């Protein structure tokens, strides 16, 4: 790809306008707020602000929308850490370590780590996107239904790593996730399954109510079972006074640098996942977390490790740039948000297509510049919000729990204004409560729930394409065979990891 310097200069002049920079910062600020609100996702924020861009110049419109996108992906981690309520499903992987740190009084550290790892991975994945967009897009095309099935099976083999020491509990959690994932219409024949004859379950269980129920509502139920949550007025006033005086410590440079390996894993896994259509930031976050945990089992993942926050947040933010690759290279949006950004480009008269680099180079370069400087703006605006939320997260439990309950209900309802989703969320909260009581890990449930329908869909498509020949379905290309070998290796490593951790546990006992 040769650089068109005239177009590049034009793009710089388009982006570095006061109007564009201000709208981008407004987008990030609104995005962080929207992302922090459970149920409201980046695609919702972009959809709601899209009409504002109709009369804006192209670079300004892109500044606002990319700002919203970046801000909301980071914003999801704020409520995950502060309130154990993932603002968006992609932040669910951050809850375990992030909120544990908050409860240890290290909320500011966790929020800063989430911000810095998000921005670092996002920036580097954007550079990767800019340098290699056409090549990456061609690579992504090699992954057809058969190859994608193997990638998803590879993800399933990592569930062992998310299970902790109790593999049987992890498998139970995954099995339940698998079952919930099959609810609704089957992806090929549209036959309803496991819907208990409830018509409103035809679309199955959406991810936001499940994640909010499992992670946030379960905590509300658990706290409500403890009588000490309700305190006296005098106590409450004392709590507020203490909160206003409290000053939690921020992240130190050496603590950030200590997590280079986890950020690197997040960058690699997130970028790869972002390239493939349909997987998205949530899979990126959980996979990155699982790989990082597998790579460093001794770092105490799940118990308040900064490394856990770094891996999950780097994993979800690294998907942002690569998600735009298919849009830039072929005019195909790789996610709902990318589709909306594509819609904004259509409004600007620059319809995304394989000829975009030739027809609208200044718009492509503007997009690249905005992707990069958006990270810097995100850093400053995110830091400001982190300070506020770190204090809010330290609000005493007796205030925090009703607030989390309210946010969970409102956030679930605002997702699609569907009251049935609130019922689902409350039900999922009960499952989450049982998981907390019996110390069953939640992550295998979420990852199996997400991956099972995708794996089924791709496997059945591959089966139809190969005209129902299983051998061709599974091994139709050298890439499929390579991925099958990778799955076998991952399974082997997982089993070794489990055996080693059991031996270590027995020694500790």
């Amino acid at each position: 790809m040769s650089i068109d310097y005239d177009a590049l200069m034009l793009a710089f002049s388009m982006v570095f306008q006061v109007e564009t920079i201000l709208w981008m910062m407004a987008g990030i600020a609104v995005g962080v707020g929207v992302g922090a609100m459970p149920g409201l996702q980046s695609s919702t924020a972009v959809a709601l602000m899209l009409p504002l861009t109709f009369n804006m110049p192209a670079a300004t419109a892109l500044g606002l929308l990319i700002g919203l996108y970046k801000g909301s992906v980071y914003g999801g981690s704020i409520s995950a850490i502060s309130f154990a309520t993932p603002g968006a499903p992609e932040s669910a992987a951050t809850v375990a370590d992030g909120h544990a740190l908050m409860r240890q009084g290290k909320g500011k550290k966790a929020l800063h780590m989430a911000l810095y790892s998000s921005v670092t991975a996002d920036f580097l994945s954007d550079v990767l996107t800019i340098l290699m967009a056409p090549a990456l897009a061609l690579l992504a095309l090699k992954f057809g239904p058969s190859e994608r099935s193997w990638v998803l099976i590879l993800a399933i083999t990592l569930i062992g790593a998310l299970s902790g020491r109790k593999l049987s509990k992890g498998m139970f959690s995954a099995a339940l996730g698998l079952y919930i994932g099959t609810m609704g219409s089957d992806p090929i024949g549209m036959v309803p399954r496991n819907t208990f004859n409830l018509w409103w379950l035809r679309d199955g269980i959406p991810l936001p109510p499940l994640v909010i129920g499992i992670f946030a509502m379960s905590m509300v139920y658990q706290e409500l079972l403890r009588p000490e949550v309700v305190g006296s007025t005098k106590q409450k006033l004392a709590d507020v006074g203490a909160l206003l005086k409290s000053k939690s410590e921020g992240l130190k440079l050496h603590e950030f640098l200590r997590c280079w390996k986890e950020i690197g894993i997040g960058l690699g896994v997130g970028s790869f996942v972002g390239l493939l259509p349909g997987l998205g930031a949530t899979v990126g976050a959980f996979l990155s977390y699982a790989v990082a945990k597998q790579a460093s089992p001794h770092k105490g993942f799940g118990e308040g490790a900064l490394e856990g926050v770094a891996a999950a947040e780097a994993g979800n933010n690294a998907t942002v740039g690569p998600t735009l690759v298919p849009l830039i290279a072929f005019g195909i949006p790789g996610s709902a948000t990318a589709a909306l950004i594509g819609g904004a480009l259509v409004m600007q008269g620059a319809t995304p297509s394989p000829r975009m680099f030739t027809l609208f180079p200044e718009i492509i370069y503007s997009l690249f510049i905005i992707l990069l400087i958006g990270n810097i703006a995100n850093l400053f605006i995110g830091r400001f919000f982190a300070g506020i939320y770190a204090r809010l997260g330290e609000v005493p439990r007796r205030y925090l729990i009703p607030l989390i309950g309210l946010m969970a209900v409102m956030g679930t309802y605002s997702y699609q204004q569907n009251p049935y989703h609130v019922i689902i969320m409350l039900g999922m909260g009960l499952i989450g409560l049982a998981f907390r009581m019996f110390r069953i890990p939640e992550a295998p449930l979420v990852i199996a729930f997400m991956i099972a329908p995708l794996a089924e869909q791709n496997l059945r498509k591959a089966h139809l394409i190969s005209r129902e020949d299983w051998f061709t379905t599974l091994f139709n290309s050298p890439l499929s065979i390579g991925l099958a070998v990778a799955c076998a290796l991952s399974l082997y490593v997982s089993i070794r990891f489990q055996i080693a951790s059991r031996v270590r546990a027995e020694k500790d006992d």
Partner: protein
Amino acid sequence: MKPIMKLMAAATLGLSALTSTAIAEDYPDKTITWIAPFSAGGGADRWSRTLSSVAFDVMDQAMRVRNIPGASATVGWGEMLKQPADGYTVMLSSPTPIIALVTEPNAPFGPDEAKIVAFISAFRGIILVKPETEWSDWDSFVAYAKANPGKISLGSTFSEMVGAQLAFDSEGIDVNLIPYDSTSDSVTDFLGGHVDAIGVTESTALNMVPEEALALINVTTLPLSEEVAAKLGNPPHAAALGYETINFPRWVGVHPDTSDEIVEKLSAHVGAMLEQESVQTITGKMGEEIIFVPWQEAQPQYEALVAGIRKAAPAITGK
């Protein structure tokens, strides 16, 4: 029936007709609830909000847009059926819920439970193949498919697949149908060479022809505009070849028991909204084409759409 009873029945009918005419004359005299049965930000939502922005100018009453998504847009439809048949609850939809209702054995209501007010837009379905294939036109595609039943694979979303399957049925050919959730997924697999052909809308086809694909045929009732047809290499039109075809409309509907007078008036209001300059500007920017079909013509076209989906569904879902 006794004469007195006949008289009473006639009087009741006459009174109800008079009341209905009187109600229709005042219609609308309060805010209309406009259901978009999809999430905020999608096509139906954008159309709804665009029309609601001019509603007051056209009919002196506001239109309140409510997004009621869920169960393939049938939750919003069900909500409309729960409201009185007075024309104050209206829905803007697409073929999606019709497909769901046709393919679901235990559907809570049928796709005929709506009275059509108007079509406001429609999209065409185009079949694309790779430029380097041996079937560079529709005739050679048909000949190859007849010689090699089931060997060609076609990926698309359900709507476009219905149109494609009707064309295949008309020619008596067997093509391996691969259902996709979204056009972008099917386009990705097509570009990667994992499926041989795809069914897409004309806007997607325009992005891909001629570099990435060749347009084989327009499988919908609506012909392409001359400009678009030329850009796509003048593919044949299934309707002109005498095939069974359908349209994929954005349709506006109300409760099936709504009186014809109210439907007629609402249809005229919708037509007037579409003529507003701001609506034309915004829909043009959205890349959507205004195709207004009033209620009398839209109703039979809607019934043909339902019949077409019923006919093609078994081949697609394997049921």
